[in-house]
């Protein structure tokens, strides 16, 4: 008999101040407090964190790669958003 799954959580840690929280992995826990403690016990054993976030995996909404054309590709042609698109005469120097 397969047991009912224990909820999955995603773990994010801030390695040091000034940096954003970064996804480091996931774990299973029945509730938020246990998830936070497990995150501490599993993902910060070597002093990796100054701050820990846990988020229920089910709360994350992801885009479908099948929609890549619609969701992510239209920006590829908007090269004018990048500084290298523009020409600055050499004698003007860096800008």
């Amino acid at each position, binding site marked *: 008999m*397969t*047991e*009912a*799954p224990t909820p999955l959580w995603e773990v994010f840690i801030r390695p040091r101040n000034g940096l954003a929280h970064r996804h480091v*992995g996931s774990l*299973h826990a029945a509730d938020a407090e*246990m998830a936070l403690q497990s995150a501490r016990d599993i993902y910060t*054993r070597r002093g990796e964190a100054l701050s820990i976030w846990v988020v229920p*995996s089910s709360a994350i909404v992801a885009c479908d*790669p099948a929609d890549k054309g619609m969701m992510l590709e239209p920006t590829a042609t908007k090269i004018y958003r990048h500084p290298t698109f523009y020409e600055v005469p050499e004698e003007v120097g860096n800008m």
Partner: protein
Amino acid sequence: MYAQALDQKDKSAEPQADDAARMERFQARIDAEEKIEPNDWMPEAYRRTLIRQISQHAHSEIIGMQPEGNWLTRAPTLKRKGQLLAKIQDEAGHGLYLYAAAETFGVTREELYEQLLSGKAKYSSIFNYPTLTWADIGVIGWLVDGAAIMNQIPLCRCSYGPYARAMVLVCKEESFHQRQGYEIMLALCRGTPEQKAMAQDALERWWWPVLMMFGPSDRDSQHGETSMRWKIKRFSNDGLRQKFIDATVPQAQHLGLTVPDPQLAFNAETGHWEHGPIDWAEFNRVLAGHGPCNVQRMRRRTRMHEDGAWVREAAAAYAAKKRARAQRPAA
């Protein structure tokens, strides 16, 4: 490792007219060293191979805690006790990272456990050998972890993103394990004659099983070629085995230990150590469940799973009560 929030229809059930074209694009991405991520299209065989390989890897980490744990309460000094406990704890962590990587395919950890407990899923045959003396703890760190690292470093570049990322974490943490083992061996080899004999005996019992860890010879390996093409595997079994032997023999010499292979000889022309024949009948016997500890390891794992059921039920029941209380309107 990854959220499964994306609501995917069971695409494998629908016949895909353009499978050949998808397959071609898929292979092109892999050839270009692009990583495959959980929600990307992938051939069913790629998915199945990876679930099998990653979960076997996870099971090996978890079962591998047992032979070392056998000496945890008998570690000879406080320092060694702490090191060994930290190492076994890392293995639990590695099992967890790997289960999470397998779970990105939508299979649950509970299902993976069930496959292990029912005997459907395998784990590394090395953990079906007993740890009879303290020197076995040294040899496991030095040789078993040494062999594992050699297998695992190439996997950090595996084509499947979550697996590759898990392996980066594993390899980073694993780096002290082999040193810890070698240090134990050094202490024994510099110690009393009894300790030295203990070290030699352990090397003799573990040497051949460790060479078998790299898997069957390339001539007999079933999964090799496709796995190489998909970059799930990056080196051949025999190639890694040779690399391991070349690295290890000088380390054994430094300890003053004799590798139990009368045919072992250095070939100055190739620069490699050539070894005697591996007893693949033994490998197959252990893999088929007839090793010294297969039954013991599985019984222990099953018992632990059963003994913990009431605790997991309590945690789930408490979480449900708490949710219900939060939803109840304040009186």
